[in-house]
Protein backbone atom coordinates (compact mmCIF):
# COMPACT_ATOMS: atom_id res chain seq x y z
CA UNK A 1 0.00 0.00 0.00
CA UNK A 2 2.71 2.39 0.99
CA UNK A 3 4.78 1.46 -2.02
CA UNK A 4 1.84 2.12 -4.27
CA UNK A 5 1.59 5.48 -2.61
CA UNK A 6 5.22 6.10 -3.38
CA UNK A 7 4.83 5.25 -7.00
CA UNK A 8 1.97 7.68 -7.18
CA UNK A 9 4.16 10.28 -5.52
CA UNK A 10 6.95 9.66 -7.99
CA UNK A 11 4.51 10.01 -10.85
CA UNK A 12 3.17 13.27 -9.42
CA UNK A 13 6.71 14.49 -9.13
CA UNK A 14 7.44 13.67 -12.73
CA UNK A 15 4.31 15.48 -13.83
CA UNK A 16 5.21 18.48 -11.68
CA UNK A 17 8.64 18.57 -13.27
CA UNK A 18 7.04 18.48 -16.70
CA UNK A 19 4.75 21.36 -16.02
CA UNK A 20 6.91 23.52 -13.80
CA UNK A 21 7.94 25.46 -16.88
CA UNK A 22 4.42 26.61 -17.53
CA UNK A 23 3.68 27.62 -13.96
CA UNK A 24 2.97 31.18 -14.99
CA UNK A 25 -0.49 30.37 -16.22
CA UNK A 26 -3.29 31.63 -14.00
CA UNK A 27 -5.32 29.51 -11.66
CA UNK A 28 -2.49 27.26 -10.52
CA UNK A 29 -0.73 26.50 -7.26
CA UNK A 30 2.49 24.57 -6.91
CA UNK A 31 2.73 23.04 -3.47
CA UNK A 32 6.03 21.48 -2.40
CA UNK A 33 5.63 19.42 0.76
CA UNK A 34 7.13 16.49 2.65
CA UNK A 35 6.37 12.96 1.46
CA UNK A 36 2.97 11.62 2.60
CA UNK A 37 2.06 14.88 4.36
CA UNK A 38 -0.67 16.31 2.12
CA UNK A 39 -4.28 15.09 2.48
CA UNK A 40 -5.54 14.56 -1.09
CA UNK A 41 -9.15 15.27 0.00
CA UNK A 42 -8.21 18.73 1.24
CA UNK A 43 -6.41 19.55 -1.99
CA UNK A 44 -9.47 18.47 -3.91
CA UNK A 45 -11.71 20.56 -1.67
CA UNK A 46 -9.49 23.60 -2.24
CA UNK A 47 -9.59 23.02 -5.99
CA UNK A 48 -13.37 22.71 -5.97
CA UNK A 49 -13.85 25.84 -3.86
CA UNK A 50 -11.45 28.08 -5.73
CA UNK A 51 -11.03 26.57 -9.18
CA UNK A 52 -7.28 26.70 -8.67
CA UNK A 53 -5.41 23.69 -10.01
CA UNK A 54 -2.98 22.37 -7.38
CA UNK A 55 0.15 20.37 -8.16
CA UNK A 56 1.84 18.61 -5.27
CA UNK A 57 5.53 17.73 -5.34
CA UNK A 58 7.38 16.10 -2.42
CA UNK A 59 10.73 16.13 -0.64
CA UNK A 60 12.20 14.03 2.16
CA UNK A 61 14.09 16.51 4.32
CA UNK A 62 14.49 20.19 5.16
CA UNK A 63 17.95 20.00 3.61
CA UNK A 64 16.55 18.87 0.29
CA UNK A 65 14.06 21.73 0.35
CA UNK A 66 16.71 24.30 1.21
CA UNK A 67 19.11 23.02 -1.46
CA UNK A 68 16.37 23.07 -4.06
CA UNK A 69 15.36 26.64 -3.27
CA UNK A 70 19.00 27.74 -3.01
CA UNK A 71 19.71 26.30 -6.43
CA UNK A 72 17.29 28.89 -7.76
CA UNK A 73 14.44 26.47 -8.39
CA UNK A 74 11.43 28.65 -8.89
CA UNK A 75 7.89 27.67 -9.61
CA UNK A 76 6.91 26.64 -6.08
CA UNK A 77 4.23 28.76 -4.44
CA UNK A 78 4.04 27.20 -0.99
CA UNK A 79 6.63 25.10 0.83
CA UNK A 80 6.69 23.62 4.35
CA UNK A 81 9.97 24.09 6.27
CA UNK A 82 10.49 23.30 9.98
CA UNK A 83 11.14 26.12 12.44
CA UNK A 84 14.96 26.01 12.31
CA UNK A 85 14.90 26.18 8.53
CA UNK A 86 12.41 29.04 8.58
CA UNK A 87 15.07 30.98 10.48
CA UNK A 88 17.65 30.24 7.76
CA UNK A 89 15.27 31.10 4.94
CA UNK A 90 14.28 34.41 6.50
CA UNK A 91 17.88 35.42 7.18
CA UNK A 92 18.86 34.46 3.62
CA UNK A 93 16.04 36.54 2.20
CA UNK A 94 14.44 33.54 0.54
CA UNK A 95 10.83 34.19 1.58
CA UNK A 96 8.07 36.53 0.44
CA UNK A 97 6.32 38.57 3.09
CA UNK A 98 2.69 37.54 3.44
CA UNK A 99 -0.11 39.20 5.37
CA UNK A 100 -0.96 36.28 7.64
CA UNK A 101 -2.30 38.48 10.42
CA UNK A 102 -4.77 40.08 8.05
CA UNK A 103 -6.20 36.75 6.91
CA UNK A 104 -9.75 35.95 7.92
CA UNK A 105 -8.88 32.61 9.53
CA UNK A 106 -5.87 33.84 11.50
CA UNK A 107 -8.03 34.13 14.62
CA UNK A 108 -8.22 30.31 14.68
CA UNK A 109 -4.50 29.98 15.43
CA UNK A 110 -3.73 29.00 19.01
CA UNK A 111 -2.34 32.01 20.90
CA UNK A 112 0.79 30.02 21.81
CA UNK A 113 1.70 29.79 18.12
CA UNK A 114 0.87 33.35 17.13
CA UNK A 115 4.10 35.22 16.47
CA UNK A 116 6.38 32.25 17.27
CA UNK A 117 10.08 32.84 18.06
CA UNK A 118 11.11 32.06 14.46
CA UNK A 119 8.69 34.64 13.04
CA UNK A 120 7.79 37.04 15.88
CA UNK A 121 5.76 39.44 13.71
CA UNK A 122 4.05 36.67 11.70
CA UNK A 123 5.28 38.24 8.48
CA UNK A 124 6.40 35.08 6.69
CA UNK A 125 4.81 31.96 8.14
CA UNK A 126 1.48 30.37 8.89
CA UNK A 127 1.25 27.21 11.01
CA UNK A 128 0.84 23.80 9.35
CA UNK A 129 1.50 20.95 11.81
CA UNK A 130 3.58 20.30 14.88
CA UNK A 131 4.99 17.19 16.39
CA UNK A 132 8.05 15.41 17.64
CA UNK A 133 10.89 13.23 16.39
CA UNK A 134 11.86 10.07 18.20
CA UNK A 135 11.59 6.39 17.30
CA UNK A 136 9.06 3.56 17.32
CA UNK A 137 9.38 -0.05 18.39
CA UNK A 138 7.28 -3.04 17.45
CA UNK A 139 6.72 -4.21 21.04
CA UNK A 140 5.59 -7.70 20.03
CA UNK A 141 8.05 -10.02 21.72
CA UNK A 142 10.34 -7.13 22.60
CA UNK A 143 11.98 -7.46 26.00
CA UNK A 144 12.65 -3.76 26.72
CA UNK A 145 10.44 -1.05 28.21
CA UNK A 146 10.42 1.32 25.27
CA UNK A 147 11.17 4.44 27.29
CA UNK A 148 14.81 5.34 26.64
CA UNK A 149 16.97 6.60 23.78
CA UNK A 150 19.44 3.94 24.90
CA UNK A 151 17.20 1.28 23.37
CA UNK A 152 17.58 3.03 20.02
CA UNK A 153 21.25 3.98 20.08
CA UNK A 154 22.53 0.91 21.93
CA UNK A 155 19.97 -1.75 21.02
CA UNK A 156 19.76 -5.21 22.49
CA UNK A 157 21.04 -8.15 20.44
CA UNK A 158 17.57 -9.14 19.29
CA UNK A 159 17.53 -5.91 17.24
CA UNK A 160 20.56 -6.80 15.13
CA UNK A 161 19.84 -5.78 11.53
CA UNK A 162 16.35 -4.72 12.55
CA UNK A 163 16.80 -0.97 13.03
CA UNK A 164 16.01 1.80 10.58
CA UNK A 165 17.47 5.29 11.06
CA UNK A 166 16.68 8.59 9.34
CA UNK A 167 19.14 9.39 6.61
CA UNK A 168 19.94 12.98 7.56
CA UNK A 169 22.28 14.02 10.39
CA UNK A 170 19.92 16.90 11.14
CA UNK A 171 17.30 14.46 12.46
CA UNK A 172 19.58 11.95 14.16
CA UNK A 173 22.43 13.86 15.81
CA UNK A 174 20.21 16.05 18.05
CA UNK A 175 18.73 12.89 19.60
CA UNK A 176 22.20 11.38 20.01
CA UNK A 177 23.42 14.54 21.76
CA UNK A 178 20.40 14.41 24.00
CA UNK A 179 21.09 10.79 24.92
CA UNK A 180 24.71 11.57 25.73
CA UNK A 181 23.66 14.60 27.78
CA UNK A 182 25.70 16.94 25.58
CA UNK A 183 24.72 20.43 24.43
CA UNK A 184 22.84 20.84 21.13
CA UNK A 185 24.45 22.56 18.10
CA UNK A 186 27.70 21.24 19.44
CA UNK A 187 30.95 22.81 18.23
CA UNK A 188 33.21 20.73 20.44
CA UNK A 189 35.12 18.04 18.46
CA UNK A 190 35.56 15.89 21.58
CA UNK A 191 31.79 15.78 22.12
CA UNK A 192 31.14 15.00 18.48
CA UNK A 193 33.68 12.19 18.68
CA UNK A 194 31.46 10.59 21.32
CA UNK A 195 28.47 11.00 19.02
CA UNK A 196 30.40 9.36 16.22
CA UNK A 197 31.35 6.38 18.36
CA UNK A 198 27.75 5.98 19.46
CA UNK A 199 26.45 6.07 15.89
CA UNK A 200 29.14 3.67 14.66
CA UNK A 201 28.16 1.20 17.37
CA UNK A 202 24.51 1.65 16.46
CA UNK A 203 25.32 0.96 12.80
CA UNK A 204 25.99 -2.69 13.57
CA UNK A 205 22.27 -2.98 14.29
CA UNK A 206 21.04 -0.80 11.43
CA UNK A 207 19.33 -2.28 8.41
CA UNK A 208 18.86 0.91 6.45
CA UNK A 209 19.30 4.67 6.65
CA UNK A 210 16.17 6.05 5.03
CA UNK A 211 13.62 8.72 5.89
CA UNK A 212 10.78 7.51 3.70
CA UNK A 213 10.29 3.77 3.96
CA UNK A 214 9.80 3.26 7.71
CA UNK A 215 6.07 2.62 7.49
CA UNK A 216 6.48 -0.13 4.89
CA UNK A 217 9.46 -1.66 6.66
CA UNK A 218 7.87 -1.67 10.12
CA UNK A 219 4.66 -3.08 8.70
CA UNK A 220 6.19 -6.01 6.84
CA UNK A 221 8.67 -6.74 9.60
CA UNK A 222 11.80 -5.81 7.65
CA UNK A 223 12.70 -3.71 10.71
CA UNK A 224 11.43 -3.84 14.31
CA UNK A 225 12.51 -0.37 15.37
CA UNK A 226 12.75 2.81 13.37
CA UNK A 227 13.22 6.55 13.54
CA UNK A 228 9.75 8.03 13.38
CA UNK A 229 7.63 11.13 13.85
CA UNK A 230 4.81 11.01 16.37
CA UNK A 231 1.82 11.48 14.08
CA UNK A 232 3.31 9.38 11.30
CA UNK A 233 3.87 6.57 13.77
CA UNK A 234 0.25 6.83 14.91
CA UNK A 235 -0.88 6.73 11.28
CA UNK A 236 1.39 3.73 10.81
CA UNK A 237 -0.18 1.99 13.84
CA UNK A 238 -3.76 2.66 12.71
CA UNK A 239 -3.37 2.17 8.95
CA UNK A 240 -1.33 -1.03 9.30
CA UNK A 241 -3.44 -2.25 12.26
CA UNK A 242 -0.27 -2.68 14.28
CA UNK A 243 -1.38 -2.16 17.85
CA UNK A 244 2.04 -3.32 19.07
CA UNK A 245 3.78 -0.32 17.48
CA UNK A 246 4.91 1.99 20.25
CA UNK A 247 6.14 5.53 19.63
CA UNK A 248 8.71 6.11 22.34
CA UNK A 249 8.78 9.25 24.45
CA UNK A 250 12.28 8.73 25.85
CA UNK A 251 12.93 9.87 29.40
CA UNK A 252 16.08 11.66 28.16
CA UNK A 253 13.94 13.92 25.99
CA UNK A 254 12.39 14.32 22.58
CA UNK A 255 12.96 16.63 19.63
CA UNK A 256 10.04 18.95 18.90
CA UNK A 257 9.36 20.56 15.54
CA UNK A 258 6.89 22.99 14.07
CA UNK A 259 6.27 23.08 10.33
CA UNK A 260 4.99 26.24 8.68
CA UNK A 261 3.57 27.27 5.35
CA UNK A 262 5.78 29.85 3.65
CA UNK A 263 5.93 31.44 0.21
CA UNK A 264 9.37 31.34 -1.48
CA UNK A 265 10.72 34.49 -3.14
CA UNK A 266 9.51 34.82 -6.70
CA UNK A 267 6.56 32.45 -6.30
CA UNK A 268 4.57 32.66 -9.54
CA UNK A 269 1.13 32.45 -7.91
CA UNK A 270 1.47 34.43 -4.69
CA UNK A 271 -2.20 35.39 -4.51
CA UNK A 272 -3.23 31.75 -4.83
CA UNK A 273 -0.66 30.83 -2.19
CA UNK A 274 -2.28 33.27 0.23
CA UNK A 275 -5.71 31.85 -0.54
CA UNK A 276 -4.34 28.39 0.18
CA UNK A 277 -2.75 29.50 3.45
CA UNK A 278 -5.98 31.08 4.65
CA UNK A 279 -7.85 27.94 3.57
CA UNK A 280 -5.55 25.81 5.72
CA UNK A 281 -6.16 27.95 8.82
CA UNK A 282 -9.89 27.29 8.56
CA UNK A 283 -10.95 25.34 11.64
CA UNK A 284 -12.55 22.45 9.76
CA UNK A 285 -9.71 22.16 7.25
CA UNK A 286 -7.10 22.39 10.00
CA UNK A 287 -8.85 19.59 11.85
CA UNK A 288 -9.02 17.46 8.69
CA UNK A 289 -5.30 18.03 8.20
CA UNK A 290 -4.61 16.67 11.68
CA UNK A 291 -7.06 13.83 11.17
CA UNK A 292 -5.09 12.81 8.09
CA UNK A 293 -1.55 13.35 9.33
CA UNK A 294 -2.26 12.47 12.96
CA UNK A 295 -0.13 15.38 14.13
CA UNK A 296 -1.29 17.90 16.72
CA UNK A 297 -3.04 20.96 15.33
CA UNK A 298 -1.56 24.40 15.98
CA UNK A 299 -5.08 25.84 15.78
CA UNK A 300 -7.17 26.67 18.87
CA UNK A 301 -8.60 23.59 20.53
CA UNK A 302 -11.90 25.42 20.87
CA UNK A 303 -11.99 25.98 17.10
CA UNK A 304 -10.94 22.56 15.80
CA UNK A 305 -12.40 20.56 18.70
CA UNK A 306 -15.69 19.57 17.13
CA UNK A 307 -14.12 18.41 13.84
CA UNK A 308 -11.16 16.59 15.34
CA UNK A 309 -11.09 12.80 15.37
CA UNK A 310 -11.58 11.94 19.07
CA UNK A 311 -8.83 9.29 18.94
CA UNK A 312 -6.31 12.12 18.57
CA UNK A 313 -7.16 13.36 22.05
CA UNK A 314 -6.09 10.15 23.72
CA UNK A 315 -3.46 8.86 21.27
CA UNK A 316 -0.28 7.89 23.14
CA UNK A 317 1.90 9.18 20.28
CA UNK A 318 0.98 12.84 20.31
CA UNK A 319 0.15 13.33 23.97
CA UNK A 320 3.56 13.71 25.55
CA UNK A 321 4.09 12.94 29.24
CA UNK A 322 4.86 16.35 30.86
CA UNK A 323 7.96 14.86 32.50
CA UNK A 324 9.63 14.30 29.12
CA UNK A 325 11.77 17.30 28.10
CA UNK A 326 10.98 18.68 24.65
CA UNK A 327 13.76 20.36 22.72
CA UNK A 328 12.99 22.42 19.62
CA UNK A 329 15.82 22.16 17.07
CA UNK A 330 17.70 25.38 16.49
CA UNK A 331 19.75 26.58 13.56
CA UNK A 332 23.33 25.51 14.17
CA UNK A 333 26.48 27.43 13.25
CA UNK A 334 28.51 26.55 10.18
CA UNK A 335 31.15 25.11 12.49
CA UNK A 336 28.70 22.72 14.12
CA UNK A 337 27.20 21.76 10.74
CA UNK A 338 30.66 20.92 9.45
CA UNK A 339 31.31 18.67 12.45
CA UNK A 340 27.93 16.96 12.02
CA UNK A 341 28.67 16.27 8.39
CA UNK A 342 32.07 14.88 9.19
CA UNK A 343 30.51 12.51 11.70
CA UNK A 344 27.93 11.46 9.13
CA UNK A 345 30.43 10.91 6.32
CA UNK A 346 32.59 8.79 8.63
CA UNK A 347 29.50 6.83 9.57
CA UNK A 348 28.67 5.98 5.96
CA UNK A 349 32.18 5.89 4.53
Amino acid at each position, binding site marked *: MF*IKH*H*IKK*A*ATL*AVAALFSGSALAEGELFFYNWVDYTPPELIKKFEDETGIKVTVDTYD*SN*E*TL*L*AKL*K*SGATGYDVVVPSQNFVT*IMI*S*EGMLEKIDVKGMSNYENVDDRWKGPTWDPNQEYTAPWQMGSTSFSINMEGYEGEGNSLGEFFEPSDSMK*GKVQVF*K*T*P*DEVIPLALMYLGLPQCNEN*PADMKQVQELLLKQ*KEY*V*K*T*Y*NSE*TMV*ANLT*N*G*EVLMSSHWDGYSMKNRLDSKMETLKYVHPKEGIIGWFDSLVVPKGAPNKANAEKFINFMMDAKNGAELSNFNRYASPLKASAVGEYLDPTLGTAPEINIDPSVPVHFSETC*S*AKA*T*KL*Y*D*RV*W*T*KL*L*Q
Partner: protein
Amino acid sequence: MAFNLPSNPLARRWFGLAPAVITIFAFMVIPIMILAVFSFMPADPYGGVDKGFSTEAWIQLFFERDLDDSLIFEPVYLQIIFRSIVLAVLATMITLAIGFPVAWYIVQQPAKKRELLLFLVTIPFWTNLLIRAYAWILILGKNGMIEKPLYALGLIDDSLELMYGNLAIGLGLVYSYIPLMILPIYASLEKLDFNLVEAAHDLYAKRSSVIRKIVIPLCLPGIIAGSILVFVLSLGDFISPSILGGGKKMMLSNLIQFQFSSARNWPFGGALTMLLLLLVGIGSFFYVRVSKKREGIA
Protein backbone atom coordinates in the same frame (compact mmCIF):
# COMPACT_ATOMS: atom_id res chain seq x y z
CA MET B 1 10.08 22.93 -47.50
CA ALA B 2 9.04 26.01 -45.59
CA PHE B 3 12.49 27.55 -45.39
CA ASN B 4 15.64 27.52 -47.49
CA LEU B 5 18.68 25.67 -46.25
CA PRO B 6 22.00 27.50 -46.60
CA SER B 7 23.61 26.67 -49.93
CA ASN B 8 27.19 26.49 -48.68
CA PRO B 9 27.82 22.80 -47.73
CA LEU B 10 29.79 23.67 -44.59
CA ALA B 11 27.16 26.11 -43.38
CA ARG B 12 24.56 23.51 -44.18
CA ARG B 13 26.33 20.92 -42.07
CA TRP B 14 26.53 23.32 -39.14
CA PHE B 15 22.93 24.23 -39.61
CA GLY B 16 22.01 20.58 -39.31
CA LEU B 17 24.18 20.06 -36.27
CA ALA B 18 23.08 23.22 -34.50
CA PRO B 19 20.20 21.76 -32.45
CA ALA B 20 22.41 19.01 -31.04
CA VAL B 21 25.32 21.36 -30.37
CA ILE B 22 23.11 23.94 -28.69
CA THR B 23 21.41 21.31 -26.54
CA ILE B 24 24.69 19.78 -25.40
CA PHE B 25 26.17 23.20 -24.76
CA ALA B 26 23.22 24.59 -22.83
CA PHE B 27 22.35 21.52 -20.80
CA MET B 28 25.72 19.91 -20.30
CA VAL B 29 28.72 22.12 -20.95
CA ILE B 30 27.41 25.22 -19.19
CA PRO B 31 26.22 23.41 -16.03
CA ILE B 32 29.54 21.57 -15.82
CA MET B 33 31.41 24.83 -16.19
CA ILE B 34 29.31 26.39 -13.43
CA LEU B 35 30.17 23.48 -11.14
CA ALA B 36 33.85 23.78 -12.03
CA VAL B 37 33.79 27.46 -11.08
CA PHE B 38 31.84 26.73 -7.89
CA SER B 39 34.48 24.22 -6.82
CA PHE B 40 36.98 27.09 -6.57
CA MET B 41 34.76 29.31 -4.43
CA PRO B 42 34.18 29.39 -0.68
CA ALA B 43 31.03 27.64 0.62
CA ASP B 44 28.08 29.62 1.86
CA PRO B 45 27.11 28.01 5.20
CA TYR B 46 23.47 27.74 4.09
CA GLY B 47 24.15 26.28 0.67
CA GLY B 48 25.38 27.98 -2.44
CA VAL B 49 28.70 29.76 -2.71
CA ASP B 50 30.21 33.02 -1.52
CA LYS B 51 32.24 35.37 -3.66
CA GLY B 52 35.98 34.86 -3.74
CA PHE B 53 38.53 32.23 -4.60
CA SER B 54 39.25 29.14 -2.51
CA THR B 55 40.92 25.79 -3.05
CA GLU B 56 39.46 24.45 0.20
CA ALA B 57 37.13 22.06 -1.65
CA TRP B 58 40.00 20.41 -3.52
CA ILE B 59 42.13 20.19 -0.39
CA GLN B 60 39.21 18.53 1.38
CA LEU B 61 39.35 15.65 -1.10
CA PHE B 62 42.57 14.44 0.44
CA PHE B 63 43.16 16.28 3.70
CA GLU B 64 41.40 17.21 6.87
CA ARG B 65 42.20 20.37 8.77
CA ASP B 66 43.33 19.74 12.31
CA LEU B 67 42.44 22.17 15.09
CA ASP B 68 45.70 24.07 14.56
CA ASP B 69 44.91 24.30 10.83
CA SER B 70 47.61 21.82 9.82
CA LEU B 71 46.63 19.32 7.12
CA ILE B 72 46.31 15.63 7.89
CA PHE B 73 45.85 13.03 5.16
CA GLU B 74 42.24 11.85 5.22
CA PRO B 75 41.39 8.85 3.03
CA VAL B 76 37.65 8.78 3.78
CA TYR B 77 36.56 10.33 0.48
CA LEU B 78 39.10 8.36 -1.55
CA GLN B 79 37.72 5.21 0.03
CA ILE B 80 34.20 6.07 -1.08
CA ILE B 81 35.45 6.85 -4.58
CA PHE B 82 37.41 3.61 -4.72
CA ARG B 83 34.39 1.58 -3.64
CA SER B 84 32.27 3.19 -6.32
CA ILE B 85 34.81 2.32 -9.00
CA VAL B 86 35.06 -1.30 -7.85
CA LEU B 87 31.29 -1.62 -7.89
CA ALA B 88 31.02 -0.08 -11.35
CA VAL B 89 33.71 -2.39 -12.73
CA LEU B 90 31.97 -5.42 -11.23
CA ALA B 91 28.62 -4.35 -12.65
CA THR B 92 30.25 -3.92 -16.07
CA MET B 93 31.85 -7.36 -15.93
CA ILE B 94 28.64 -9.09 -14.87
CA THR B 95 26.49 -7.34 -17.47
CA LEU B 96 29.06 -8.23 -20.12
CA ALA B 97 29.10 -11.87 -19.02
CA ILE B 98 25.31 -12.04 -19.26
CA GLY B 99 24.75 -9.55 -22.05
CA PHE B 100 27.08 -11.08 -24.62
CA PRO B 101 25.50 -14.56 -24.69
CA VAL B 102 22.06 -12.95 -24.77
CA ALA B 103 22.98 -10.80 -27.76
CA TRP B 104 24.58 -13.82 -29.41
CA TYR B 105 21.42 -15.84 -28.91
CA ILE B 106 19.18 -13.10 -30.28
CA VAL B 107 21.28 -12.68 -33.39
CA GLN B 108 20.96 -16.38 -34.20
CA GLN B 109 17.16 -16.25 -34.28
CA PRO B 110 15.00 -15.79 -37.36
CA ALA B 111 14.25 -12.14 -38.16
CA LYS B 112 10.70 -12.13 -36.77
CA LYS B 113 11.68 -13.59 -33.43
CA ARG B 114 14.70 -11.29 -33.27
CA GLU B 115 12.45 -8.25 -33.40
CA LEU B 116 10.32 -9.59 -30.62
CA LEU B 117 13.31 -10.39 -28.42
CA LEU B 118 14.85 -6.95 -28.93
CA PHE B 119 11.54 -5.40 -28.13
CA LEU B 120 11.45 -7.36 -24.86
CA VAL B 121 14.93 -6.14 -23.98
CA THR B 122 13.81 -2.52 -24.26
CA ILE B 123 10.59 -2.87 -22.27
CA PRO B 124 12.14 -1.92 -18.88
CA PHE B 125 13.02 1.50 -20.33
CA TRP B 126 9.36 2.33 -20.50
CA THR B 127 9.22 2.75 -16.75
CA ASN B 128 11.06 5.24 -14.61
CA LEU B 129 14.17 3.83 -12.92
CA LEU B 130 12.98 4.92 -9.49
CA ILE B 131 9.73 3.05 -9.84
CA ARG B 132 11.57 -0.05 -10.98
CA ALA B 133 13.78 0.21 -7.88
CA TYR B 134 10.68 0.24 -5.69
CA ALA B 135 9.40 -2.75 -7.59
CA TRP B 136 12.51 -4.62 -6.52
CA ILE B 137 11.60 -3.91 -2.90
CA LEU B 138 8.33 -5.75 -3.50
CA ILE B 139 10.21 -8.65 -5.03
CA LEU B 140 13.19 -8.95 -2.70
CA GLY B 141 11.72 -7.56 0.51
CA LYS B 142 10.53 -9.41 3.55
CA ASN B 143 7.37 -11.33 2.70
CA GLY B 144 8.00 -10.26 -0.87
CA MET B 145 7.36 -12.19 -4.05
CA ILE B 146 10.39 -14.42 -3.55
CA GLU B 147 10.00 -15.12 0.15
CA LYS B 148 6.26 -15.60 0.34
CA PRO B 149 5.97 -18.75 -1.77
CA LEU B 150 9.04 -20.23 -0.09
CA TYR B 151 7.43 -19.65 3.30
CA ALA B 152 4.20 -21.17 2.09
CA LEU B 153 6.01 -24.28 0.88
CA GLY B 154 7.87 -24.48 4.16
CA LEU B 155 11.26 -24.27 2.43
CA ILE B 156 12.46 -21.41 4.63
CA ASP B 157 11.48 -20.36 8.12
CA ASP B 158 13.47 -17.18 8.45
CA SER B 159 13.83 -14.15 6.20
CA LEU B 160 16.40 -14.56 3.42
CA GLU B 161 17.48 -10.93 3.99
CA LEU B 162 17.70 -10.27 0.29
CA MET B 163 17.03 -6.55 0.55
CA TYR B 164 19.41 -3.88 1.79
CA GLY B 165 22.79 -5.30 0.98
CA ASN B 166 25.39 -5.79 -1.71
CA LEU B 167 23.29 -8.40 -3.45
CA ALA B 168 20.42 -5.97 -3.88
CA ILE B 169 22.74 -3.19 -5.11
CA GLY B 170 24.34 -5.55 -7.61
CA LEU B 171 21.01 -6.84 -8.85
CA GLY B 172 19.74 -3.29 -9.20
CA LEU B 173 22.73 -2.17 -11.24
CA VAL B 174 22.84 -5.22 -13.49
CA TYR B 175 19.11 -5.17 -14.06
CA SER B 176 19.02 -1.44 -14.79
CA TYR B 177 21.86 -1.31 -17.26
CA ILE B 178 21.97 -4.68 -18.98
CA PRO B 179 19.91 -3.52 -21.98
CA LEU B 180 22.61 -0.93 -22.61
CA MET B 181 25.10 -3.78 -22.90
CA ILE B 182 22.93 -6.08 -25.01
CA LEU B 183 21.87 -3.54 -27.61
CA PRO B 184 25.29 -2.31 -28.81
CA ILE B 185 26.71 -5.84 -28.81
CA TYR B 186 23.71 -7.02 -30.76
CA ALA B 187 24.21 -4.21 -33.26
CA SER B 188 27.79 -5.24 -33.94
CA LEU B 189 27.01 -8.96 -33.96
CA GLU B 190 24.31 -8.33 -36.51
CA LYS B 191 26.88 -6.87 -38.88
CA LEU B 192 29.19 -9.83 -38.33
CA ASP B 193 29.73 -11.83 -41.48
CA PHE B 194 28.88 -15.37 -40.42
CA ASN B 195 30.74 -16.72 -43.43
CA LEU B 196 33.88 -15.92 -41.47
CA VAL B 197 32.69 -18.08 -38.61
CA GLU B 198 31.86 -20.87 -41.00
CA ALA B 199 35.21 -20.53 -42.69
CA ALA B 200 36.96 -20.80 -39.35
CA HIS B 201 35.02 -23.93 -38.55
CA ASP B 202 35.88 -25.35 -41.95
CA LEU B 203 39.51 -24.77 -41.12
CA TYR B 204 39.09 -26.83 -37.98
CA ALA B 205 39.23 -23.95 -35.53
CA LYS B 206 37.99 -24.90 -32.09
CA ARG B 207 34.75 -23.35 -30.86
CA SER B 208 36.63 -21.34 -28.26
CA SER B 209 39.14 -19.99 -30.75
CA VAL B 210 36.37 -19.04 -33.17
CA ILE B 211 34.82 -16.92 -30.44
CA ARG B 212 38.13 -15.53 -29.28
CA LYS B 213 39.77 -14.87 -32.66
CA ILE B 214 36.81 -14.09 -34.91
CA VAL B 215 33.69 -13.10 -33.05
CA ILE B 216 35.04 -10.99 -30.20
CA PRO B 217 37.49 -8.91 -32.26
CA LEU B 218 34.81 -8.18 -34.84
CA CYS B 219 32.21 -7.07 -32.36
CA LEU B 220 34.67 -5.24 -30.16
CA PRO B 221 33.17 -1.83 -30.94
CA GLY B 222 29.85 -3.03 -29.54
CA ILE B 223 31.50 -4.49 -26.44
CA ILE B 224 33.39 -1.24 -25.86
CA ALA B 225 30.32 0.91 -26.31
CA GLY B 226 28.25 -1.28 -24.00
CA SER B 227 30.94 -1.45 -21.35
CA ILE B 228 31.44 2.30 -21.32
CA LEU B 229 27.73 2.93 -21.03
CA VAL B 230 27.31 0.49 -18.16
CA PHE B 231 30.47 1.63 -16.37
CA VAL B 232 29.63 5.32 -16.58
CA LEU B 233 26.04 4.89 -15.47
CA SER B 234 26.92 2.48 -12.65
CA LEU B 235 29.60 4.84 -11.35
CA GLY B 236 27.06 7.63 -11.15
CA ASP B 237 24.15 5.48 -9.99
CA PHE B 238 22.31 6.90 -7.10
CA ILE B 239 19.16 4.87 -6.74
CA SER B 240 20.49 1.34 -6.29
CA PRO B 241 22.84 2.12 -3.39
CA SER B 242 20.40 4.32 -1.50
CA ILE B 243 17.11 2.50 -2.08
CA LEU B 244 18.11 -1.12 -2.60
CA GLY B 245 21.39 -1.05 -0.67
CA GLY B 246 19.84 0.60 2.37
CA GLY B 247 22.10 3.66 2.24
CA LYS B 248 24.52 2.18 4.77
CA LYS B 249 27.54 2.88 2.65
CA MET B 250 27.93 5.96 0.55
CA MET B 251 28.79 5.81 -3.12
CA LEU B 252 30.28 8.71 -5.02
CA SER B 253 26.89 9.86 -6.24
CA ASN B 254 25.39 9.74 -2.73
CA LEU B 255 28.37 11.67 -1.43
CA ILE B 256 27.81 14.35 -4.07
CA GLN B 257 24.13 14.58 -3.25
CA PHE B 258 24.99 14.79 0.46
CA GLN B 259 27.28 17.77 -0.19
CA PHE B 260 24.51 19.67 -1.95
CA SER B 261 21.89 18.87 0.70
CA SER B 262 22.81 18.14 4.33
CA ALA B 263 26.43 19.20 4.22
CA ARG B 264 25.63 22.43 2.39
CA ASN B 265 29.09 22.38 0.87
CA TRP B 266 28.49 23.09 -2.80
CA PRO B 267 32.13 23.74 -3.69
CA PHE B 268 33.08 20.31 -2.40
CA GLY B 269 30.13 18.80 -4.26
CA GLY B 270 31.41 20.57 -7.37
CA ALA B 271 34.94 19.25 -6.85
CA LEU B 272 33.61 15.70 -6.41
CA THR B 273 31.56 16.05 -9.58
CA MET B 274 34.62 17.19 -11.51
CA LEU B 275 36.52 14.22 -10.13
CA LEU B 276 33.74 11.85 -11.19
CA LEU B 277 33.82 13.30 -14.70
CA LEU B 278 37.58 12.97 -14.78
CA LEU B 279 37.40 9.32 -13.68
CA VAL B 280 34.80 8.52 -16.29
CA GLY B 281 36.87 10.29 -18.93
CA ILE B 282 40.09 8.49 -18.01
CA GLY B 283 38.32 5.15 -17.72
CA SER B 284 36.70 5.42 -21.13
CA PHE B 285 39.89 6.71 -22.76
CA PHE B 286 42.03 3.82 -21.55
CA TYR B 287 39.38 1.25 -22.27
CA VAL B 288 39.09 2.42 -25.83
CA ARG B 289 42.85 2.56 -26.26
CA VAL B 290 43.58 -0.83 -24.77
CA SER B 291 40.77 -2.41 -26.77
CA LYS B 292 41.95 -0.74 -29.97
CA LYS B 293 45.39 -2.17 -29.40
CA ARG B 294 43.97 -5.65 -28.91
CA GLU B 295 41.95 -5.20 -32.03
CA GLY B 296 45.14 -4.36 -33.88
CA ILE B 297 46.86 -7.54 -32.69
CA ALA B 298 43.92 -9.72 -33.52
